[in-house]
């Protein structure tokens, strides 16, 4: 187990108002010992990236159910990179067709979670990924 707490930003880009999933995941990640910041609704990609930089998070999770993911998710990634946060563990979820999941996973997103994914699986996945990262950081240091 790592000493350092995992810091997560859950973001809602675009005009989509569906926040049940984002808020539920945020609560569950907190229950798993992570520090979680939730952006609230109606954020631009730049606002999300700015918050991620300011809060110095390890993980950014995006939620979108409006179909605008292919337009907005890559923009968030670009805005993160522009702020030197291109190395965060970037994940997402929502109503996202499988083809789009594949293409986002090949384009800077570590993982996309579809409807029906147990929230504990999301938490466990993030913990495992972050432990690998922390170990790598430890070796480099």
């Amino acid at each position, binding site marked *: 187990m790592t000493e350092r707490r995992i810091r997560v930003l859950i973001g809602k880009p*675009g*005009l*989509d*108002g*569906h*926040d*049940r999933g984002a*808020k*539920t995941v*945020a*609560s*569950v990640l*907190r229950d798993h010992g992570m520090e979680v910041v*939730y952006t*609230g*609704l*109606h954020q*631009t990609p730049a606002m999300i990236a700015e918050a991620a930089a300011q809060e110095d998070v390890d993980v950014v999770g995006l939620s979108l159910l*409006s*179909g*605008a*993911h*292919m*337009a*907005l998710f890559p923009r968030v990634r670009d805005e993160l990179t522009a702020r030197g946060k291109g190395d965060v563990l970037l994940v997402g979820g929502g*109503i996202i*067709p*499988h083809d789009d999941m594949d293409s986002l996973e090949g384009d800077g997103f570590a993982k996309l979670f*579809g*409807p*029906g994914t*147990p*929230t*504990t699986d999301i938490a466990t996945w993030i913990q495992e990924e972050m432990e690998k990262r922390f170990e790598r950081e430890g070796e480099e240091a």
Partner: protein
Amino acid sequence: MSGAAETTTDPRALWEEALNSAKLRDVDFTTLSGEELKALYTSEDASFDEERDLGMPGQFPFTRGVHPTMYRGRLWTMRQFAGFGSAAQTNERFKFLLAHGQTGLSVAFDFPTLMGRDSDDELSLGEVGQVGVAISSLADMETLFDGIPLGEVSTSMTINGPAPILLAFYIAAAENQGVAPEAIRGTVQNDILKEYQAQHAWLVAPEPALRMITDMMSYCAERAPQWNTISISGYHIREAGSTAAQELAFTLANGMEYVRRGVAAGMDVDSFAPRLSFFFDSHLDFFEEICKFRAARRIWARKLRDEFGAKDPKSWMVRFHTQTAGVSLTAQQPENNIVRTAYEALAAVLGGTQSLHTNSMDETLSLPTEKAVKIALRTQQILAEETEVANVIDPLAGSYFVEAQTNRLEAEAEAYFQEIEERGGVVPCIESGFIQSEIHRSAVKYQRAVERGDKRVVGVNCYTEEGDGPPEIDLHRIDPAVEREQHRRLGELRSTRDEKGAGEALEAIRAACRDGSNLQARFVAAAHAYCTLGEIAQVLREEFDQYKEPKIL
């Protein structure tokens, strides 16, 4: 026989003994909302006075239905919510649905429209035409209803923050077809309170939003008397994660707030209350849902008559639309969603709904395809034509279980009404995040129950299939060209309209914001001047306070 002296012959005691000594399935015997259920309900559990608590169909307190004839007189309206892409594409879908026997229209708008943004607004990027149709001006509204006579169809529009503006586009489109506002029939959702609580498409802060609503109620009472001015909606509250009791309580609390506002604005309650309608979710817990619908009718009737002093029986009635539960659908084995939807539709009908939307099986993956929509509509037609359930009014009344649950839901709603009042009313409960927190807590509790396996979902936590990969079904995708085409149309509109007239119409709105005169008539004038949604909404954003989401986690 030895020990005969201790052996009871009381049937109830015998049954209890049998139940308690039997091995029962190791599951939670609770409703979908987590309420403990007894194994059996008897007359001891269901206290009701037939005359006082049930009444006759079409009579106070309307527990058994709002019409004396119910579905013997007329079946419920089959109203499939539709909208995607451009106005022209949705116009085609509307004509398809009408041709297949649908009897009313229901418009889904995209997020920019829902938020009062034009398709070419910077914030609209990627969202244009995605979850509904993009409507930025009267020109789009005219295209949407091209070839559909607005004096003949009834139209429901799911729009809230900018509802007064979209209604203005609709009125103007009707007038341009030669149909007077007096002749239009339909509904705008226009339920802003639940937007802050659950659906989250608002335009300005609660107080100015409520003023626009009372302006609309007053305008319609005079000019468009067949128009339902608010569809007070529990659907989004439920979909956001509430329990059945919370859906019932928050929806009716919101409804009572609109009534208070109308009365406070000087209107006679009977001049507007008959035009209020309701919109509920029909979820998977069959009996709990039926009881929720029955309880809603009884509570509203009692409140309107006894607390608000309404005299017109139409003011006492909960007329409602129902949609089956989108959240109950699964991405895994999506064809199973047809079955879920059918049960939910049956509950809505046994609960006495006036109109119904059945979800399509593929909606957890994308917007529905035409085939999936047709199956959803056919589900209602099978229910109406083949199952014979429409022959008898409120067939479950008098069931000990049904009456006990109806009573239980009414009592839970009353407890919430009291708590909301103690916390200062609905608007303070929104501003403090109380209602949002209650909904969120229920959502998390349910999610945990599913993950523990206490609540079972076929294909998700039981009866999963090996290698449940991506489902092999067609997807309906929105072409990004829709967004570009909307930009072109808006550019053309702005360059060809009478710019001076448009500017004056916007300034008239600004003046009305300040002097308190009725905004609705100004919106209709601005619609005719081809002012865009975003332009009108921008005036409102400049003149009125903005809403800031309270932090609840």
